[in-house]
């Protein structure tokens, strides 16, 4: 188990390094940074001064090592737009995005797994098909539209939930639901497929021959074997929710990392862009590592191999 984790950690570290290089390279390829910082009315002297002050005249490898070393120590530079340290900007917004992503994932899992199990147990029946259809509709629904519908119904007409902000935990319910909708179909189908395979396996026949209860057969013996792909995909989905919640943050007026990223990209605020890309990449890597570890806990064969 330890060896397995070590190998995964080394792999994760090398991915981290690659991401650092790519994140750095992308911002340098998007145009002359000194020009965009200086603004449209700047003279060429101004640009030259800025280039010198920000260290943009140094060779790229030097700039990279400098940035990477600072990033490693938690200093992600200063935002030109906000005139504030990037790390502070992110620290303010990260809890909102994390709260949103986690509530989205929780809602998605709590819906998709029971539906998937039910669908698998009633494979081929009307219920199975109905669940599949609902999942398809969910996938086809644009999230901004669903978000607005929810706001109109539950926020304005019924007034059950706040329509914007996350001052209370109720504020996470609607945006979380919208986020969850995009993840539910894939998770549901994976659960269903995995459960159908598991339920028709020889070890389930053994479990039944042992006279175990249906709950034990389905939830203990089958689900554990069906869960692995679900865990892997859920980790990726969570990463996607954390990085791709711009639309939802806009609809529900939440100032999270997604909104910050969109803002900084459109204004070419490159230290923020670099930092957000780096952060999201780290989150992805962390989540993948977590999923691998969870799968190794679920399946003993992975620990050896």
């Amino acid at each position, binding site marked *: 188990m330890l060896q397995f984790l070590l190998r995964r950690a080394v792999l994760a570290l090398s991915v981290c390094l690659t991401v650092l290089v790519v994140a750095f390279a992308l911002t340098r390829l998007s145009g002359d940074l000194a020009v965009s910082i200086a603004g449209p009315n700047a003279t060429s002297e101004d640009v030259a001064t800025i280039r010198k002050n920000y260290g943009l005249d140094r060779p790229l490898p030097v700039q990279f090592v400098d940035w990477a070393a600072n990033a490693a120590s938690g200093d992600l530079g200063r935002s030109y737009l906000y005139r504030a340290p990037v790390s502070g900007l992110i620290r303010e917004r990260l809890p909102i995005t994390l709260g949103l992503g986690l509530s989205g994932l929780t809602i998605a899992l709590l819906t998709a797994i029971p539906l998937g199990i039910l669908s698998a147990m009633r494979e081929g029946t009307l219920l199975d098909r109905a669940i599949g259809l609902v999942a398809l509709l969910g996938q086809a629904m644009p999230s901004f539209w669903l978000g607005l519908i929810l706001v109109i119904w539950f926020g304005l007409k019924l007034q059950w939930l706040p329509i914007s902000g996350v001052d209370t935990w109720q504020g996470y319910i609607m945006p979380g639901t919208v986020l969850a909708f995009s993840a539910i179909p894939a998770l549901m189908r994976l659960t269903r497929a995995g459960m159908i395979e598991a339920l028709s*396996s*020889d070890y389930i026949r053994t479990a039944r*021959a*042992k*006279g*175990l209860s249906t709950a*034990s057969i389905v939830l203990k013996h089958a689900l554990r*074997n069906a869960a692995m792909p679900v865990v892997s995909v859920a980790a990726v989905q969570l990463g996607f929710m954390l990085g791709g919640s711009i639309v939802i943050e806009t609809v529900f007026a939440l100032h999270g990392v997604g909104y910050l990223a969109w803002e900084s990209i459109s204004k070419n605020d490159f230290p923020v862009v670099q930092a957000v890309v780096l952060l999201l990449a780290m989150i992805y890597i962390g989540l993948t590592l977590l999923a691998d570890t969870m799968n190794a806990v679920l399946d003993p*064969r992975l620990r050896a191999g």
Partner: protein
Amino acid sequence: MKPVLEIENLRVGFADGTAAVRGVSLKVARGETHCLVGESGCGKSVTALSTMNLLARGARRSADVMRFHDYDLTSLSDRDMARLRGDKIAMIFQEPMTSLNPAYTIGSQMAEVLERHRRVSRAKGLERAADLLGRVGITAPGMRLAQYPHQLSGGLRQRVMIAMALMCEPELLIADEPTTALDVTVQAQILRLLQELQRELGLALLLITHDLGIVARMAQRVSVMYAGQVVESGSAEALFRAPTHPYTRGLLACVPIPGKTPRDQPLGSIPGVVPRIGPGFVGCAFRDRCAHAEPACGGTVPRRTVAADHDAVCTMVPA
């Protein structure tokens, strides 16, 4: 003595119209081994799974009598049947490599049986599991309990399956080709083990096999199945001494007997394959492969007594 398991006129049909089992009757007494023989697809496994009520969804089962001791298996609820399975009736399967759950330790999977049926603690369950692993000839049982199925060989896994089946001291053990997937030396060990356990525990053993060598070695009673029917049944001795149904004789001709079968002649074989039997099929299902087929074989062929405790379904048996 009253048999432990008694089945009369068992019929199983699948959703696609196939009649997999057509009126099988058999009895297994305490301490007795009853072998169910026949080639692939003849309905042996389906008969066994019906007894356990483990048929796949879509299969329909009916029987005039299906009794385990005083339990009427035809009318038992799923819940009550589940209480019987693993407790008083146990089953082992042909596929030791895939019959254990890869995600749980051997100990957990074994102890679970006792926890379910006897409401004992995990520790008590593991203790019993270790005892039984030792009993089926597994060394260092303590270590094995903590291992996962993928760490064990096929032979070991089948021993684990047997030990697991014995957790609650069942009265009936159904073994569906328990040695088919194993190599020959391991086969012999497993069979010896089953014999010992049977003698010791007084098990009623329903052993399903296509291997007549195993039948000769293990069986007190034999039922030969063909296309969903028992075509001949009797004591092992009578059946081997005077096989009557052409199918039984054909099966026996396929097996070389050292010192008796001539070396320079090819072994017997039965041409063709088991036909798929749809609803409304009449007559002997073997007639298309039978050298002795006659017009009467197309009509209803009754079960006739060959000798005491020996009967066959064939027109050649005098009424």
